[in-house]
């Protein structure tokens, strides 16, 4: 009897986090090469043992939306089930010649550019399907870009809770403070998705913003 009461109590508490939803759709958004897929892979590998997509030094490696359903994440005794949605990097220009520098042949580079333009369109379309969004930024890059403002502006307009991640803190020139200064109204977490650095703080913040759904 006591066990049943306790079980029901916890069901009510955690059930209210979802407001009836069985899983929360969490999108990974940001400019190209910021580490969206690396972070999505980190979560997927930690909790399902599988990866969501391939990563590359060449920009626009992710050119279509890819997702993993029913990813159950447990943190400090709490459990949430997510649908992880990894999106193509959002850019205002895509030049196939930029890919040639990485040794890709012209035809492949042109095809990559074409697919990447479609990827950007698709990523923006998917915004309406998100419950929570993690905006992944490269902590080595200047955060004061219009694309970053546009992404966050669109999330605020849709009332979607935002967590800003300053990725690549394993690299010496990473500047998390600069990202924090650029987005003082948002929770900013510095991490290294590649090496799994500071993931505790990431999960803490993820669970915190998920409560806002």
């Amino acid at each position: 009897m006591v066990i049943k009461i306790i079980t029901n109590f916890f069901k009510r508490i955690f059930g209210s986090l979802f407001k009836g939803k069985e899983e929360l759709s969490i999108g990974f958004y940001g400019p190209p090469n910021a580490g969206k897929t690396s972070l999505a892979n980190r979560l997927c590998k930690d909790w399902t043992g599988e990866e969501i997509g391939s990563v590359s030094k060449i920009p626009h490696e992710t050119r279509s939306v890819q997702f993993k359903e029913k990813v159950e994440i447990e943190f400090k005794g709490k459990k949430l089930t997510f649908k992880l949605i990894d999106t193509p990097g959002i850019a205002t220009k895509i030049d196939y010649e930029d890919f040639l520098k990485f040794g890709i042949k012209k035809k492949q580079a042109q095809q990559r550019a074409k697919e990447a333009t479609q990827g950007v369109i698709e990523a923006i379309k998917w915004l309406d399907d998100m419950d929570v969004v993690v905006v992944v930024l490269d902590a080595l890059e200047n955060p004061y870009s219009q694309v970053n403002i546009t992404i966050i502006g669109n999330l605020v307009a849709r009332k979607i809770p935002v967590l800003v991640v300053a990725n690549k803190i394993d690299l010496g020139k990473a500047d998390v403070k600069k990202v924090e200064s650029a987005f003082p109204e948002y929770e900013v977490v510095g991490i290294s998705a590649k090496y799994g650095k500071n993931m505790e703080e990431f999960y803490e913040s993820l669970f915190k913003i998920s409560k806002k759904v």
Partner: protein
Amino acid sequence: MEKKLTLSFIPYSEIAKLASVNRVKKILDIVLKNRIVILQGRLDATEEGSLIQSTMALAGKIKNFKGVELAVIQPNGNKEGVFTQFKLGIARALVGSRDALTIIGPAAIVKEIKRNPEKIDLMLKG
């Protein structure tokens, strides 16, 4: 050899009564003529999203069109500084704003628009 650079100024009154889709179309029509648009005011966040989507749709279809460079400047910088303007930028992006300036240039001409807390640089292609 001389190179010609054309700036097209769009006063806010020209877009004020236009539907979102027509605002985006008007801007892109000018950009496709290889001109840099200086827009009085700014688009709201969803319009900026539509501008990016339309730009990408065109970049996938029109030869030699690779996209745009885009930046929004709040002109009362003396009081606030670009740093504070950036913080306010997201709030203003929600509703659009008449007291801003938006620069949109074709990527074939504008290499980069760099925004830093202290300044904004418009870098043109050589």
